[in-house]
């Protein structure tokens, strides 16, 4: 019996409990009158249903984690497991094979070593599955019976149901936060491992990047793990070139749309601009690699550059800048539109022209919102991978020439994780250290952006 069926069973029992609870509440209401009940019958019904479903679901979730561990403990304790190799890959694969056969996922064993283990597996899985089902049903019935008996005319089912709903909603919102925390912890763990092999100083301040996944993992060459070229590439492409494109274009389009555009024009230009944000970045990547990069190379050739690279920081940065225009323009648009009409009237009544009003009153007043939009755009840009992979190569050059190939932190994370090295090789682990730095930087930018937005909100409400 699978987890799905168990969950359906829990829902079925819950429905039964709901009906039973409501019937009981109605019977009280009929005998004692409508005013006698402290809550509507449906709240009693939900109270019983929650007491059935919640314990069952919690148990099923816990059991689906604990159960397999108990099964493998049981199998390893059986006499057939004595012949297994003590450690390593072979032991794991034999166990996995036996488990696959026992659950019916694989038709028959290939390795003789696994054959003896199939029977213990089958036995253990069967036993713990039965235990799981019995306990789950027992919990459901106990919860249902207890809550059912608690239904009395003066029982305040409504407050209890409301409180439970609040807790469920709280848990839902915690999931996102806990995930972030989990990402952070896992990053920290692997980063610490990496820094055990390569000195953080060498990593953070070294000028040469070229980890060799084939080198001896026990004695990495720290001079190959200098991440400065990656940081520079990221900042140069994401925060400099892309912003030189995105800030003026985004700001000017926001000003045009809020101050000059006819409402009808605005009603279709603004969504069209926001569609830009929905284009998959890989599509931008094609555009950057197949159209913009060759164009820039030809242009560089025509201008007399010798042997320009076909992959350039400029191509990636330009396309990335176009990609994040909507981020800048929609935040700027919102914050300019939020400046009270009275400010605009005040300035126009002083004899200021529209452009003077924009330059001297609207943009300064909307500046916090604009800055926040730019910060969000930067953190988006420096986390962007696909465009750079396709248009700016993986060569880690430390250069201020935008026509050269460059690479970024995100690209190297992908390259290191999908590279040739084994998982515990420092070259692979360096991906986590890079991810950790990136995580901290974008987190910091978002934090600052949110603070700025908050100040801005206080100013105009």
């Amino acid at each position, binding site marked *: 019996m699978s987890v799905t069926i168990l969950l359906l069973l829990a829902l079925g029992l819950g429905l039964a409990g709901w009906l039973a609870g409501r019937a009981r509440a109605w019977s009280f209401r009929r005998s004692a009158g409508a005013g006698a009940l402290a809550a509507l019958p449906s709240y009693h019904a939900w109270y019983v249903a929650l007491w059935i479903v919640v314990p069952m679901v919690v148990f099923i979730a816990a059991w689906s984690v604990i159960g397999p561990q108990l099964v493998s403990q049981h199998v390893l304790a059986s006499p057939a497991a004595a012949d297994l190799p003590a450690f390593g890959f072979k032991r794991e694969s034999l166990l996995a094979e036996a488990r696959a056969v026992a659950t019916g996922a694989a038709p028959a064993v290939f390795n003789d070593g696994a054959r003896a283990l199939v029977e213990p597996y089958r036995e253990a899985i069967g036993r713990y599955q039965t235990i799981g089902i019995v306990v789950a049903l027992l919990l459901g019935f106990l919860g249902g019976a207890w809550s059912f008996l608690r239904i009395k005319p003066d029982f305040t089912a409504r407050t209890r149901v409301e409180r439970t709903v609040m807790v469920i909603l709280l848990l839902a919102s915690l999931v996102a936060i806990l995930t972030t925390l989990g990402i952070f912890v896992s990053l920290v763990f692997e980063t610490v491992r990496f820094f055990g092999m390569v000195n953080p100083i060498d990593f953070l301040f070294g000028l040469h990047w070229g980890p060799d996944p084939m080198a001896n993992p026990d004695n990495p060459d720290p001079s190959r793990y200098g991440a400065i070229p990656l940081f520079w590439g990221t900042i140069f492409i994401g925060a400099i070139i892309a912003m030189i494109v995105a800030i003026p274009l985004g700001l000017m389009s926001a000003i045009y749309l809020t101050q000059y555009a006819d409402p009808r024009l605005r009603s279709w230009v603004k969504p069209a601009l926001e569609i830009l944000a929905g284009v998959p970045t890989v599509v931008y990547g094609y555009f950057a690699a197949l159209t913009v990069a060759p164009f820039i190379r030809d242009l560089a050739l025509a201008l007399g550059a010798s042997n320009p690279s076909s992959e350039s920081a400029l191509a990636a940065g330009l396309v990335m800048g176009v990609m994040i225009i909507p981020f800048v323009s929609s935040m700027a648009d919102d914050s300019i539109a939020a400046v009270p009409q009275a400010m605009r009237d005040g300035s*126009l009544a*002083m004899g200021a022209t529209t452009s003077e009003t924009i330059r001297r009153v609207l943009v300064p007043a909307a500046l916090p919102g604009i800055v926040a939009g730019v910060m969000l755009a930067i953190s988006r840009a420096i986390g962007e991978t696909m465009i750079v992979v396709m248009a700016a190569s993986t060569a880690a050059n430390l250069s201020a020439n935008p026509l050269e190939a460059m690479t970024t932190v995100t690209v190297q994370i992908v390259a290191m994780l999908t590279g040739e090295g084994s998982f515990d090789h420092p070259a692979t682990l360096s991906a986590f250290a890079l991810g950790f730095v990136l995580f901290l930087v974008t987190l910091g930018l978002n934090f600052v952006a949110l603070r700025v937005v908050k100040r801005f909100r206080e100013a105009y409400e």
Partner: protein
Amino acid sequence: MTVVHPNLEDTEAKMSARDVSVFYGDKQAIDNVSIDIPTKYVTAFIGPSGCGKSTFLRTLNRMNDTIPSARVEGEILLDGDDIYRSKMDVVQLRARVGMVFQKPNPFPKSIYENIAYGPRIHGLAEGKQELDAIVETSLQRAGLWNEVKDRLDDSGTALSGGQQQRLCIARAIAVDPEVILMDEPCSALDPIATAKIEELIDELNGRYAIVIVTHSMQQAARVSQRTAFFHLGKMVEYGRTSDIFTNPLEERTKDYITGRYG
């Protein structure tokens, strides 16, 4: 039709409206209003809500231009020149005809920058010293100098409501206008701040032609020498304030000022 009291011939007109009608889209907000705004007096526009007095005020410095559907017919003369003629420079017009709004709307800049805004965009000051002098004079005329002279760098929005409104008046004065339009300048203020603004209007009277829209008949009686009564987009009656309040010629005016409606 409009009743104009006969004994007004002594006044010299700063602005004159001739058969002015205003439309928002298809809706007519002002119907054939003709009035002379005197140079040396305070003129009050009174009338119930929605009677068009604010709309008419905003035609006098073409602030209705900012509303795309608004359309003005007839002519409005400033010193004899039609302000709606095609060659009229709106920037120049608004420098000559300043405006103070219902709700104080200082820019989110320092007190100094608020006053310096107009002189800067119109290039009225050469150098920092002249600008300083304009800021000081304007604040003094608005009766705000003594309260803010030590904190000119503080934000204008940090002042109290009444101070903010006087700051807005000082800002309008700073470009040395000929006419100041005030659109219910006290409706967002408490009685003490209102008294200060009224005192200020008295002091400014004579130096500038002032037009004030107000809901309060007492205020109109206190600060103005000329009163125009608006009703349903028409100007019903116009005359000396004392005549309007003591001896109205029209039944509707009488009903309004005795509080029968409005």
